């Protein structure tokens, strides 16, 4: 175990690389973002196609793999339209801000442990700072500028309203996202991403009534409410279905990017997919153990967490999360705007605050004696139970019967037919039905064709 722990980079391991290694790491993170977009769009279209029983893109390249590349090239050769009322400088910078913020967040994601590159022992991470998770939050909060400025600079009403709408959405869900990370900070005791991955290495021991129970190391299990809220929040934050209100194709044309075309539009698309991959990577880092191998693998194979193998686990976890994103898009219908805001502010936020309160309470009685601790937990649970039972709830009124509804109609309402009206069958429906052989059509090969 000591060998494995030695693989964990600490904050002191950063900032010692030669310049070519730093450049290489930055290039790697950037290329990872671009490649993830190219493959991500293809992956999404294929998976959604499979879920909707249609082939999806399958013409360009093997399995249609090069479809996104072809689309990107086509996009580059399209006419770049600049609206006359647009604010030219801001119009140009808005998509750039979006992409830069999405890609920058990748720089604090740990892709793996310490490895040896050309004789240099270095962590597989561009950089890490004591406040790395705050860097992620800063990137996501600055990404809102791309949306807002894109909508405003278009000089048109619909993009402006779309931009305001989507930025209100992103800001609201950022609050829920930030609060769900608080539980991770409290448990891990650090804000650096490599430190959080290291903290999830081994399960802590919980003692319940004198019995030592090994708790799982992953915060997704240990802090399940935070994990669920965080994932819902990042789906809202990245503007993905079912929260894709900013660009709701069937309602809004394209929201804030209505006026955008050609490469600028491509940049917005790029930033959306990079943000999806980045957020999946952040979720992996914060809640799913980062680059560490899932539990059963390490028991049979001790070397799973050393060398370059962790990158495989990392990319596997990210891929699964991206699949969940696509799955959500293929399954859930889009929420209405008020439902969406109610979910964010009235459901996710209070649950999150309560959960943090409970967690803080549990953490503060950790050092007590087991009898006091049990007593404190019991009192807390009792108060919670009493509050739940005695909470003044609004009794749902019994639904009035149909007759009562009819009687309560105000005078002057439309006349109603009697409720027990029997409509006699029309004489014209009497028709002689010709006797004929039942059609017997065998299910042929063409029934599989879609």
């Amino acid at each position, binding site marked *: 175990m000591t060998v494995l722990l030695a693989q964990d980079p600490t*904050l002191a391991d*950063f*900032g010692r690389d030669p310049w070519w290694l730093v450049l290489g790491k930055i290039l790697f993170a950037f290329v990872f973002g671009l490649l993830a977009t190219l493959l991500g769009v293809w992956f999404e279209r294929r998976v959604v196609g499979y879920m909707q029983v249609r082939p999806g893109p399958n013409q360009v390249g093997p399995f249609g793999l090069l479809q996104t590349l072809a689309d990107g090239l086509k996009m580059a050769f399209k006419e770049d339209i600049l609206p006359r009322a647009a*604010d030219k400088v*801001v119009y140009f910078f808005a998509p750039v801000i979006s992409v830069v913020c999405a890609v920058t967040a990748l720089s604090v994601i740990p892709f793996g442990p310490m490895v040896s590159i050309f004789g240099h022992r270095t962590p597989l991470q561009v950089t890490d*700072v*004591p*406040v790395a998770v*705050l*860097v992620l*939050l*800063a990137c996501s*909060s*600055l990404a*809102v*500028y791309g949306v*807002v*400025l894109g909508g*405003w600079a278009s*000089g048109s009403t619909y993009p*402006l309203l779309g931009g*305001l709408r989507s*930025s209100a959405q992103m*800001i609201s869900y*950022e609050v829920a996202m930030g609060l769900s990370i608080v539980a991770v900070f409290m448990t891990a005791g650090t*804000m650096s991403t490599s430190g959080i991955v290291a903290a999830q290495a081994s399960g802590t021991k919980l003692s319940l009534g004198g019995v030592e129970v090994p708790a799982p190391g992953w915060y997704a299990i240990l802090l399940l409410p935070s994990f669920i809220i965080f994932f819902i929040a990042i789906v809202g934050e990245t503007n993905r279905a079912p929260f894709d209100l900013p660009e709701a194709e069937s309602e809004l044309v394209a929201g804030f990017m209505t006026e955008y075309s050609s490469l600028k539009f491509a940049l917005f698309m790029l930033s959306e997919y990079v943000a999806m991959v980045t957020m999946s990577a952040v979720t992996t880092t914060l809640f799913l153990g980062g680059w560490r191998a899932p539990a059963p693998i390490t028991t049979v194979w001790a070397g799973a967490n050393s060398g370059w193998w962790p990158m495989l686990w990392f990319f596997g976890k990210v891929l699964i999360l991206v699949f969940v994103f696509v799955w959500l898009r293929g399954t859930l219908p889009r929420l209405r705007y008020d439902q969406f805001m109610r979910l964010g502010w009235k459901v996710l936020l209070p649950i999150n605050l309560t959960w943090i309160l409970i967690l803080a309470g549990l953490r503060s009685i950790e050092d007590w004696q087991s009898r006091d601790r049990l007593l404190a937990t019991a009192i807390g649970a009792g108060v919670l139970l009493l509050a739940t039972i005695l909470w003044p709830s609004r009794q749902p009124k019994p639904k009035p019967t149909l007759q009562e509804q009819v009687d309560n109609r*105000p*005078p*002057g*309402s439309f006349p109603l037919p009697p409720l027990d009206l029997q409509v006699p069958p029309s004489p014209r429906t009497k028709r002689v039905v010709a006797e004929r052989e039942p059609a017997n059509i065998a299910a042929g090969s063409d029934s599989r064709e879609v």
Partner: protein
Amino acid sequence: MTTQTVLAAAGEVSGGEEVTFWVLAPLALIGAIGMVWARNAVHSALWLVLTMLCLGVFYVLQAGPFIGMVQIIVYTGAIMMLFLFVLMLVGRDASDSLIETLRGQRIAAVVLGLGFAGLIGTGLHRALGGTAGVGLEQANAEGNVQGIARLLFTKYVFAFELTSALLITAAVGAMVLAHIERRREDRMDQVATMKARFRPGNYPGPKPGPGVFATSSSVATPARLPDGRLSERSTPAILPVRELTAEETSPKGTDR
């Protein structure tokens, strides 16, 4: 802690820090000047965002990574975003009038501003020029975040809680002032709505669309009613009244 912290505690300035400062300090100044000079209110806000971002990086350079990141998240991410919302909803052409009401106030303001900047600058330089930072290492001994947390939740806990109570009161007050709840009695039921709709003087049909039977497809062109009058109800109220030029009203020759 990182090497930066150690260096800053020792009062030295590393090469990277110096380069970052000399790159970002002019940018911060340009942002500040641009904020004052920009005619457009949104541009002004964006220049301010640039300055705030530079300040955030300066905090990080000065071995305060937490305050730097919080500066970026809270000030540029949340507060300036609110400013932008308001400015954008006010409208893009809401620039200030350029007529000077007080004669010579600009020159006076520039002279006074430069004088004030010079005074502050020389004062600070003379007061702090040769002083080395003391106590940074002790403050950051157990980590920057932990140090701030310890101070916030022990020494300054009362001020901290008081500030949070103030902010919550302000937020709740804003909500109380802005929230309008319609009383149950004020809601009209279907019968009342229909009666109001067919009351004499109210036209019960849908409003005519703009540009109906008109010579132009513009939304600003009012529709014509069956008796030939123009219907003012057909144009949106927010559109400015526009007089068409003779060239615009003349037939375009497209029907030939």
